[in-house]
């Protein structure tokens, strides 16, 4: 618990959320490339493996370390929300709504996390408080 708190303080929860999405996107994309099919096998003349590679690319992009994470959140949101809408077009199929609702939830979570600022980092510990003699000492005078 303490280690996890230290990890979150060091990395920040924004990057932790992106790392979590990256793990999900790479795993899901690898599954699509390997042969997993959600509710359809092709859309817009693109096979599902193409979407799988897109998920892997989005996961790798969000895993990279940039100075600002705005573009990474935008890429993650684009992948999750577009996939949720694409799955929602198949909601009439048996249990077709389950995957769509799940990805809508992931997209909503990413949107909330993108608006959530990291906690401020505590500044370094200051030096000890000086005494009056130290404060009023004129440089060059004997101590």
């Amino acid at each position, binding site marked *: 618990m303490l280690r996890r708190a230290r990890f979150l303080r060091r990395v920040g929860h924004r990057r932790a959320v992106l790392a979590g999405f990256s793990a999900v996107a790479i795993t899901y994309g690898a599954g699509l490339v390997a042969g997993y099919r959600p509710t359809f096998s092709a859309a817009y003349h693109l096979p599902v493996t193409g979407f799988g590679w897109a998920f892997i690319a989005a996961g790798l992009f969000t895993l990279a370390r940039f100075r600002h994470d705005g573009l990474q959140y935008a890429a993650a949101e684009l992948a999750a*929300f577009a996939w949720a809408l694409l799955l929602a077009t198949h909601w009439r199929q048996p249990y077709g709504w389950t995957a769509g609702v799940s990805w809508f939830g992931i997209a909503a979570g990413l949107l909330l996390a993108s608006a959530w600022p990291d906690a*401020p980092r*505590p500044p370094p510990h200051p030096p000890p*408080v000086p005494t009056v003699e130290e404060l009023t000492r004129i440089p060059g005078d004997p101590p």
Partner: protein
Amino acid sequence: MTGWLASGGPVPGTPGGGLRLNTALITALLIGIPSVLVAVGSYWLSLRARREQGEAQQQLVDAQAFSRAREVYESAIAELRQQLAELRQENRDLRARTPRSRHRP
């Protein structure tokens, strides 16, 4: 609508393909435009969160600097009060040891 999506979309050059292609294009736009809008919104929210984080960081530094300055001046005041008390005591001791006539100007 789900049928042609599931089967890979309309095939160009087939009878009725133009209308189906338009339907596919509209659906693609209905998926693409909201997705891009949400992504842009996420980027904007990230920028705002970054600005708020900078302000919170500045407030934390200011609060710690204020606390530190207060600690320094309260310590200095306490030390000066102690020195003043010691000086008064020395003054009283000197007055007690010195003949009274020498006090007056």
